[in-house]
């Protein structure tokens, strides 16, 4: 076993150095967590065994191909209808070799790896919740200092670069960059809860070695323990519709002190945002802010111009909902009104109440009613959204 471990590590080092000097990547990226290190070892060891079997069998075949051929006048041996005993003996040899590989050489370490992968709670010092939605990730810190921090992370590659026929220079991290990075402390074991609001997603950073499907209506879990500070990139790995290729994951691993500082500034930001919900906004400010929110979150489906992509994604321009009344005579928002649709969603339309704050919802609704070819003229204050949430 030790020998395999050494060979595996050697091979990993060799491949890693190859990685560094060529732009081709031949193996898993450098592992950043214990799980990824383990996965890489398992992979290297298995790869080595598979290669060894392949080469041995290939050599035997090639020898036969070149020497036992008719053109060399090789006379076929007359198999005297092999006695059952001999036949059983010979066919049991490959059987036994694979038995050893499957259930001892690979099987025993695999058992320990599985237990390690699935142990999400032991020694975990913090919990985060990751929610997948078409086509963005939402991160929420569940405990400790950071409790209550919650934000959405969207693809930040400029739209024109991802459009059909773009010929210019692409960003260095084309398709693997987001506006809000998930920030985690180095060295801490983080328990990750995973869920989804619509279809299946899979939150995957190759350097973490963990991969778990986000299932709507269920909580799945995994864990990460990042050992080195740095920025790690990955993307959704479960086909989730037309934006599947456009929902990357970016994680910043910071040393504890810096992480704490980040938590403090983030909390301040959030406090400021919720304070914004209490003040009275002007229509112009709401529209200006709403434009930003719209382009980041809504334009993927409803398009920048509000034209939508019918039939799956209806247009907002001239839409009955965006031009209809929001509140009824009793002062409560109407069912199937503009506000109801944004807060609670319907079918493919996500429920935004979990993802956007009061100011953002008020702004985007005001924007949609007074731009994109609509001119209802009214506006929605964050305080009204706050009330509607009650």
């Amino acid at each position: 076993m030790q020998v395999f471990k050494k060979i595996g590590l050697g091979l990993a080092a060799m491949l890693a150095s190859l990685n560094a000097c060529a732009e081709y990547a031949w193996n898993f990226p450098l592992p950043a967590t214990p799980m990824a290190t383990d996965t890489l070892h398992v992979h290297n060891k298995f790869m080595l065994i598979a290669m060894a079997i392949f080469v041995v069998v290939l050599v035997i075949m090639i020898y036969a191909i070149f020497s036992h051929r008719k053109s060399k006048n090789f006379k076929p041996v007359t198999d005297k209808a092999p006695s059952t005993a001999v036949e059983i003996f010979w066919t049991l040899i490959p059987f036994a070799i694979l038995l050893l590989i499957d259930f001892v050489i690979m099987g025993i370490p695999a058992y320990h790896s599985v237990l390690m992968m699935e142990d999400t709670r032991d020694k975990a010092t913090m919990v985060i919740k990751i929610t997948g939605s078409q086509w963005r990730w939402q991160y929420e810190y569940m405990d400790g200092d950071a409790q209550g921090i919650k934000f959405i992370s969207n693809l930040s590659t400029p739209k024109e670069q991802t459009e059909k026929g773009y010929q210019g220079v692409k960003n260095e991290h084309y398709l693997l960059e987001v506006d809000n990075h998930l920030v985690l402390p180095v060295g801490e074991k983080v328990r990750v809860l995973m869920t989804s609001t619509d279809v299946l997603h899979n939150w995957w950073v190759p350097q973490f070695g963990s991969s778990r499907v986000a299932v709507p209506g269920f909580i799945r879990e995994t864990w990460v323990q990042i050992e080195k500070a740095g920025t790690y990139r990955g993307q959704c790995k479960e086909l989730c519709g037309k934006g599947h290729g456009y929902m990357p994951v970016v994680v910043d691993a910071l040393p504890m002190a810096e992480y704490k500082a980040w938590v403090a500034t983030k909390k301040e930001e959030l406090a400021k945002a919720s304070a914004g919900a209490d003040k009275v906004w002007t229509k112009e400010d709401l529209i200006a802010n709403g434009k930003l929110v719209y382009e980041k979150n809504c334009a993927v489906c409803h398009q920048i111009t509000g034209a939508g992509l019918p039939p799956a994604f209806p247009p907002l321009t001239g839409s009955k909902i965006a031009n209809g009344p929001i509140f009824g005579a009793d002062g409560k928002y109407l069912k199937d009104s503009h506000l109801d649709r944004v807060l609670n969603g319907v079918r493919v339309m996500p429920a935004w109440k979990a993802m956007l704050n009061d100011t953002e919802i008020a702004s985007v609704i005001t924007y949609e009613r007074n731009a994109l070819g609509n001119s209802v003229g009214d506006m929605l204050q964050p305080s009204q959204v706050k009330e509607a949430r009650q």
Partner: protein
Amino acid sequence: MSTTTVAHHEEHAEHPSGIMRWLTTTNHKDIGTMYLTFSLIMFFVGGSMILAIRAELFQPGLQLLNPEFFNQLIGVHALIMIFAALMPAATGFANWMIPLQIGAPDMALPRLNNWGFWLLPPSAILLTLPFTLALFGIGDGALATGWTFYPPLSVQGGIGVDFAIFAVHLLGISSVLGSINIIVTLFNMRAPGMTLMKMPMFAWGWLITAFLLIATIPVLAGAVTMLLTDRHFGTHFFDAAGGGDPIMFQHLFWFFGHPEVYILLLPVWGFIPQILETFSRKPMYGYKAQVYSFWAIGALSVVVWAHHFFTAGMPVPALLYFMYSTMAISLPLAVLFFCWIKTMWKGSMSFETPMLFAVGWIILFGIGGLTGLMLADVAADAQYHNSYFVVAHFHYTLFAGGIMGIMAGTYYWLPKMTGHMYSEKLGKLHFWLTAISFNLTFIPQFFLGLAGMPRRIPDYALQFAEFNMISSIAAFVLGFSQLLFVYNIVSCARGGKKATDQVWEGAKGLEWTLPSPPPYHSFTEQPIVK
């Protein structure tokens, strides 16, 4: 009246000609030819879809397709290749060769046989029709969920999903009918003296395949029907909000989906040893061991399904069970590989095109098998899952292990079926072009997967550019070299050097005792097998 009937019955000389011959035929050779032709056409339809995809993936950035259309192409490509190209090819050979190999005059249920075939073209139309409808503004195109139909994405999808569900139903009925026919034929119509353990290996492969189809197709049919009712009739089988579970669909789907892999491969495992013994001029090694391995693999294949979605989350004991049971499949498979190589060992080999394909097949399918063993490891699977590593792996099993096997069979039996020899030179060229470009297409995909490129994405990050470019170029060579295959088949059907009855020097078995091509009705008198 009675005299004409008798005469007709005895001679079978008159059968409808023209289109009616093919529509109404109950002759196993005609039906086999239709299956094989249909399969070849659909191979090119599915192939051109994937070339569009490879063209899109040639370099980063969107060039040709928009993401919705890209998603439609990947799913329909897979469904067509699996259900409309690979399965009908195997059924075509079964129709042609099983009666000839076991000394029967025809299949046991000829009318059912005709119906089984004629269900295929409508289902192919159903699968591809939404593309055309979308051009006229009806619906938003074909199934865009990948071939696996996973809900909730498939519940969300447009009419393409409904079309695909109905297509899968028709294909499923066709497969079950074909399977019943093969089982009945094999159990009742073998020549006197041919015990089950003297049956040709191809017949054995198909017997297990037929049982697997009958066991698993109804589960698939049930699962997609539940999906249909979730979509349109307010049920919540796969919706947590109503007490259902989206992952349950994956369990049902892969209960069919994993055996499906062996359904596609077992017929090939049947005739490859026959090709090996023919061109090694030496009887196949370990006939019994191979038959028992078939049974073992057939039985194991229905109890390992969950290894297709380890990352969906399941209890530790389930993970361990599905990992170890999956690994256990490698044991009988190792026996098969050993027997194939031992058949070649110390034979007197010659390398005509079928043998080239068979030997190349062993090597490439070996890569597919070994990477499959690696995928069984739960820890490593977290990385491989849904990455290009998996894409490369299953193309080694299904393109190399399936389609290249079918090509070996085609070259092997073509002279028997047409009565002419194909061009050996073109055949060999076809083999080398296919084998080399296949590897150049898929080896880079192993590395892409390891580096972290997920499958089913229309556009990718810059670090994946080089390997994708190599893969795309090779894919086009691979695609276009298949035109040689068609040319060779068509020119062989039209004429060429006459084939002898035995065709190959080392060929043994009842089909080689008949003239080439065999008469329209063969074995009107039963041969006796000693």
